């Protein structure tokens, strides 16, 4: 009994379900915020709730259970596309949040969705990359198959779609047909989204081999790489000719986008692993570590700028920069379920709103 009881106790403390880390997105005067399995539409200024998903979708609501939301939704004129951990892509109505149609895959969807007028692109943990027409039908003859789970948001650049996979590869696909144009193999799984920069002609991608790489779009060869002491799982930020990326080794790195030369004397140290992507706002680099500490960094020299702000809960979702009444604001959703508006110039909280779910 002792053994069984203790195992149960250990089991209860050890098993935690997926919680989600979808980033907030803004669409016109609507702010879409995800928490666990819920997507809530707020009025941007007042934060009054307009609708939530699932919940206000009528009789079919029992059939809709996204379990958790990790990927950032995509918004087009037609619909809002929400990737669910249940392996389903939900197309929602802008005004009501009702499900217009859904598309099922065979694995959890952890990466985000990217969409334009031509199509909707996303990857699934079933190892496939999907392209759908705005109506929900498949665009390619068949989904593109990778050798591992796809857990990142694809990057669309012109007629090319760049996708990373846990099979250690970066794939460059023809966006209209889904055919592979080229691929680049790294030494470990890739879970962070690639970022394409036409100015340098490079695509940047961080991986579980603890390297942030720049791969030439023409030669398909590695141009440079910087090495951390743990995985890169954030989407890098390219701004002003510099690439910024946080690592799970509790450090933030800055490198010249073209050459890979370190832009700072030393990487900036934070109190926890960095999963949320960095944001550049008002001449200050905002980085949030997993333990919920918000740091202001001078992007030029990597020194602390404006101190830090403790949010009191873990943060795994990318922050969103929005234009507030008094200037730019940073919107953060904590794992604990709070929506926090932060003034990046003073690193102080403007508003905190608990989310349901």
């Amino acid at each position, binding site marked *: 009994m002792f*053994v*069984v009881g*203790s*195992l*149960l106790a*250990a*089991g209860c403390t*050890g*098993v*935690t*379900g*997926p*919680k989600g*880390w979808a980033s907030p997105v803004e669409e016109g005067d609507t702010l879409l915020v995800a928490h666990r399995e819920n997507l809530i539409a707020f009025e941007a200024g007042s934060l009054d709730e307009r609708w939530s998903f699932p919940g206000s979708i009528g009789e079919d609501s029992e059939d809709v259970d996204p379990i958790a939301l*990790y990927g950032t939704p995509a918004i087009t004129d037609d619909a809002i596309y929400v990737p669910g951990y249940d392996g389903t892509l939900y197309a929602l109505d802008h005004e009501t949040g009702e499900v217009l149609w859904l598309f099922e895959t065979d694995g959890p969807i*952890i990466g985000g969705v990217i969409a334009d007028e031509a199509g909707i692109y996303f990857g699934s943990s079933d190892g496939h990359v999907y392209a759908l027409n705005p109506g929900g039908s498949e665009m390619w003859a068949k989904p593109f198959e990778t050798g591992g*789970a796809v*857990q990142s948001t694809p990057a669309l650049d012109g007629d090319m779609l760049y996708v990373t996979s*846990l099979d250690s590869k970066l794939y460059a696909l023809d966006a209209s047909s889904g055919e592979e144009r080229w691929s680049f193999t790294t*030494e*470990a*799984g890739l879970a962070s989204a690639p970022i394409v920069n036409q100015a340098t002609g490079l695509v940047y991608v961080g991986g*579980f*081999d*603890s390297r942030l790489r720049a791969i030439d779009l023409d030669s398909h060869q590695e141009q440079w790489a910087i090495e951390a*002491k*743990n*995985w890169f*799982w954030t989407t890098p930020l390219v701004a002003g000719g510099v690439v910024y990326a946080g690592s*799970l080794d509790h450090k933030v790195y800055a490198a010249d986008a073209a050459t890979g030369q370190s832009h700072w004397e030393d990487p900036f140290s934070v109190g926890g*692993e960095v*999963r949320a992507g960095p944001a550049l706002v008002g001449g200050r680099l905002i980085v949030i570590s*997993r333990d919920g500490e918000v740091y202001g960094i001078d992007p030029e020299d990597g020194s602390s700028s404006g101190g830090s702000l403790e949010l009191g809960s873990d943060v*795994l979702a990318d922050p969103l920069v929005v234009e507030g009444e008094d200037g730019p604001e940073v919107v953060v959703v904590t794992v604990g379920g709070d929506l926090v508006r932060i003034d990046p110039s003073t690193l102080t909280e403007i508003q905190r709103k608990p989310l349901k779910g």
Partner: protein
Amino acid sequence: MDLVFWLFAHLLVIPLTNGLVLISRIFWGNFGIAIIVFTLVMRAATWPLTRQQLRTTRAMQTAQPRIQEIQKKYKDPKRRSEETMKVYREVGFSPMGCVWPMLVQFPIWIALYQSIQFTLSSTPERLLDLSQRLYPWAYLRTAVPLENQFLWLDLSQPDAFIMPLLVGLSMWVQQKMTTPTTAVDPQQQQINNMTQLMFPFMFAFLTLQFPSGLALYWVATNVVGITMQYFYMGRRMDWRQIFSVNPTPAPVPAAKQAGGNQANEDTSDEEDDEGEASPVVGEAQRRRRRRRRGRQRRR
């Protein structure tokens, strides 16, 4: 308390987690094989404890006929208990001798459970947690995420049918091999039977809740345990008795009925001579006595 958790994590959970990832990397990234190999390594490492447990079990089985005799002979519970303890002392059986090895292994089980949970990384958050528990060695860090698929199993998810069955069955067989199969008191026998069924049922039920990777560990460790037990004392086992759902009390050997103390001394001698004791000493003793008498007559 924090220090205890820290020590538990850094002395057990993290080394075990890294060990599992390392073995998995060596065995072509196959986590199912890694769990099985890991089980073999763990059973080999805890062999001194297992051997002590087996010795205790064997001593208990050796004393079983005499315990039955005492249960028949003495109606007074106090006297019965005294006589039983006396027999236990004589054959070198200590109830704690069975419990200690279990207790020592218990933190390892919990740590292993947590390690499997971390290593399998059933959710993205778990994968993040794993990144903080891996040693800074590229060979390990580039090995994850591991392949969760093994045979028909997704090792990070519970299996609804076959694994609970295998866990329950293997545990039942192992228990039947370990627990004395007979008791004179029908009530005691009923309790024994119930206990032997309760644990396999409970673990089968737990298997429905936990990742099948942990169930694979349980099945593997039970099968290894059964094999060890077979080679350690298997030739003396009554397999028909083990697989019988309602075991009948074994007949008390005549030698024991004739003189319990003498038989007991002989048992101790045999342990000293051969380093092991037999549950069927009565027959061996009779043969030895017959040979001794024959030699005396010839002289």
